[in-house]
């Protein structure tokens, strides 16, 4: 079932691009990346309220996303978790662990975990 996973990359250039039009319809260059571009984006609330465990899981995932962006952009880990908050464009102060838990950087996994 995964046999053709790769070959379609080449097929894509044949099958997918018949409607390609160079020029005015080409993708406009987006603004140059900068650390002012927020990693996190506001989203509408989910249709149903999240359980505390779901909120904790999402907070952890968002913080891990922030950490990944930081490491990818800076080429190093933050000296402390606080650096993710004080560096513009990374973690908003509102992104906090649930009561009784704390975020910890796992440099082996390149993820934020709970302790």
């Amino acid at each position, binding site marked *: 079932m995964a046999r053709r996973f790769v070959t379609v990359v080449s097929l894509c250039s044949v099958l997918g691009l018949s409607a*390609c039009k160079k020029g005015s319809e080409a993708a406009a260059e987006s603004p140059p990346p900068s650390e002012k571009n927020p990693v996190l984006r506001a989203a509408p609330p989910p249709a149903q309220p999240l359980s505390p465990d779901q909120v904790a899981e999402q907070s952890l*995932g968002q913080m891990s996303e922030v950490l990944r962006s930081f490491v990818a952009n800076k080429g190093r880990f933050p000296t402390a978790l606080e650096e993710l908050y004080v560096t513009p464009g990374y973690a908003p102060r509102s992104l906090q662990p649930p009561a009784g838990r704390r975020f910890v950087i796992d440099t082996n996994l390149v993820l934020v975990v709970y302790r």
Partner: protein
Amino acid sequence: MYADDFDFYPGCIKIPQFTNIWQVRILPYVGGNRAVFWCPVTEANCKWDTNVNTTFGGTPMNVDWIIAGGTGTRFSYGYNDWGLVNPAVISFGLGGDINPPARLELRPAMVTKPSDMIAIADTVADRNFDGSIDPRNPREAPSGRHNGYTVVIFADGHVESPKRSDVIDPNNQFWRARWNCDNEPKPTITWNPANYPN
């Protein structure tokens, strides 16, 4: 072919270096032809070619050093690394960060429905994690550069050209499920696709 040979999908990014690996890993399976990784609607500077694309890493520049980051290598196509779920040890895409043995690739057995599993799609070529696609992030979402449509390659190898607006619609349960290897729409995940770049 790749997944048959290795019993896992290529994965997206090698950490902690943050270099894209899926392109390099599948390159032998397209006869070493880097040209097929370029969408002609994008500028020539999106090619996998150091003669026209100067955003690769290394000194001297290494054509296989594809930088994943906020000012990474410019590229035409992205890989579904995480699905709709944020980064974690387990990926709900086709494999996110790779660093064995702590962070492993995704095995084909983990993909519930390959014909409904997004693998690769047109990406917004803005140098912001161009090798990845994520509908929740405006700068990583599939591009709608084909007159509002996007080319999507699925894990079983078939290709579709849906409206980009459907692929990134948080209210479209069918497309939501196609982002995740368990084919579940993950209803607790939300995002706002307004004003995404094309």
